[in-house]
């Protein structure tokens, strides 16, 4: 069992996801980056589950996939509403909460 490779892949995906979530201005791309983060976690779970011969990891991964689907649904709905209201999905312009 080559655990390291999976963990490395997950770490790379995680970093890409974090970068996308922090640096991208397009709301849809930010959502996609968040998916990347979640899936990197999934890879970790499945990898450790297989490594320990324990099904819990896979089960949790399935739960996370289901939750992520719901989350992205809500996220896209919000993005759609922002677009209808402001004709733009640039996150820099969505700063109504400015202190």
């Amino acid at each position, binding site marked *: 069992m080559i655990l390291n490779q999976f963990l490395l892949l997950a770490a790379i995906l995680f970093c890409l996801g*974090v970068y996308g979530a*922090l*640096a991208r201005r397009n709301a849809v791309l930010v959502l996609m980056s968040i998916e990347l983060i979640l899936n990197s976690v999934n890879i970790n779970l499945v990898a450790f589950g297989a490594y320990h011969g324990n099904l819990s990891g896979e089960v949790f991964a399935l739960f996370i996939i289901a939750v992520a689907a719901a989350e992205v649904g809500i996220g896209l709905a919000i993005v759609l509403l922002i677009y209808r209201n402001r004709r733009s999905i640039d996150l820099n312009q969505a700063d*109504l*909460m400015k202190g």
Partner: protein
Amino acid sequence: MSLATPMTEVPVEEHGAETGHALVTEMYQPTGFFLENVWIIPAVMAVSFLIILFFGKRFAKKGSEVGLAAIGISWVLAVITGIQWISQRGKVPEAEGSGEHAAGALLAAGEEATEGAEIGINAVVRTITWWSNGGIDFPVGTLVDGLTIMMLFVVTSISLLVHVYSTDYVAGDRRYTHFFAFLSLFTAAMLFFVVSENIIQMIVGWELVGVCSFVLIGHWWEDQENSDAALKAFLTNRVGDVGLLVGMIMLFWAAGTFETLDINRMINNGEIGHTTLLIASLSLLAAVMSKSGQFVLHTWLPDAMAGPTPVSALIHAATMVVAGVYMVARLYPVFYEGMSISGSSINALAVIGSITVVFGGLLAFVQDDIKKVLAYSTISQLGYMILALGVGAWTAAMFHLFTHAFFKAGLFLGAGSVSHSVHSFDMKKEMGGLRKFMPTTYKTFVVSSLALAGVFPLAGFWSKDEILVGTGGWGLFGGTGGNGAYTLMLVMGIVGAALTGAYMTRVIYLTFFGEFRGHGTPHESGKRITTPLIILAGMAAVAGLLNLPAGFITGSHDGWQERFGHYVEPTADYFPAISHGIPSYSLAIVSSLIAFAGIGYAYYYYFVKVAAQSPTATELSSGLTSTNKVAKAGHTLLKNKYYLDHLYTGIITGFTKGPLAKSTYWFNQNVIDRTVDNVGRGAVKGGQFIYDKVDQGFIDGAVNATGTASQGAGQELRLMQNGRVQRYATFLFVAATILAGIFTVIV
């Protein structure tokens, strides 16, 4: 199943060794389809509730036929279950005949032990684990023993008659279907409560019947008065429910299990400390006081008469209000040990019960509303049951519960029949002389009243006499027995008997004698109302024969005497070793004479003196209350129900918003303010000095500096709150990374 092979159980022997008497060393485990599947009975009623609620209006008779069919099935099942129990009970040989059973209790414990073991009969318990959490199992199941069988019979019988009665009484009501749905739900909840096997289930059943009571009292909620009464019943019961929860939780932590019988066994084996049991039993007593209308928390019960009369008969006379009594009986070891019932002469349970007997009875005198008289009478009779449990007369309490259910339901339904024809409950304004118009109602009402007053040989005589015997404080009348010398309770019980006779005589005169004072022509009610009345009056007349005292028929030991006690009272290790009093003729005669004195005095007052004044008179114009100061004061006190309602709404709630607030204000204005003023004046002088030197110079400077600093910091920090989500996310990630680093280093 046909073999009566006794099974030996281990914990039983420990119990016998611990307490020293009632040596039940062998146990017989009864079996039978209906005993094991008793859950069907409440389930039938629950299904009926759902059907009526969702589809009731589509039926030809608006759902009432569903309720009637369901309660009919339940009743038949309850009777079959009862027969099965009796046949199983018969397989256990009686030790030496019930006639000498009581005599055996008199003998020293050691002597009984030499007579050899008595074979006990176990309860039929079926349990499944509902769910488990943190290693604690929450079971759900059924428990059948004699007590359950008795309650099943009482609840289904009264409910069946009330269902029949209601088809006529609430006919044409705007919420007819709804009414029958909730009658079904109530019956289901009550049956669920009596078959419950553990204390969690008991709490659930207890609350369910409370909710049904709330809904049915407020059946005509369009009138503010009715919905207020419903709320009052609900809220007063909540006060007691706190006690119920506290008590049950204490029992759970003390015993480590929810199973009623296991808790009882542990207490009998002395595994739970006395102090714990004392506190638990006092907490549970609060619940009993609210549910079973014991004095100081009884005030909701008379108001609950705002509900339809069949509801009052079923819920507020025969079944729900005895839930508290049932709970004490089911968890009897808790009270028996906790309150040290054995060998004592006073305890909280007996005191509350005896006060309720007398105070409830006195209140019944001043009510003009026929249902309220009956409500106070119910309170008084519930007091008898609690008194009996308090003095250790378990069987007497259960027997009184049994007989009371019949004659009190009969009285309530009779009152309903009267009001159905005169459209009022006011005895003084709208009734009088009804015996000519409503002969059936009149006859059944009189029979039930005599049974209530304890006139030989009707039901009330036997059960009340048994309670008085059980007080054990009757050395005055010869004989011995009982669990202690409860002389005070004996006296209160006898006084209560006299009061009962007197107020029932008053009700009968005001309702059925003299001239009719209302308007219109009253008429006898229909068959569906009078048939239940006749059945209930019949039961009120003969139910007492089920538990003839031992030795009443000389020379015959079993067959006829103490049948009720024989089948209902547990003889297993989950029941405390109570001793039974021996009946005495002189006590029976004296208590009967006192009851007759009560009846006689009221008869003389109403039937002779008031009737002589004028046929429409309701009280003497120059009666005791208008001439004697003390009597008048007493009358006013009773009229105002000992000012308890004033205490609760006027004083306890009013005090916090009225006088308490005012006096606090006064205290504030005159004491605190003046002190403050004086202190202030002195302080001003000192302050001036300090102001000039310390404040302006040093403190102000510091404050100003702090202000400036925080303003500056705020200005800087404000920039962080720039509304850009991604900036926030960056902070989050950075913080998380730093924390992760710290934890990695530390751990």
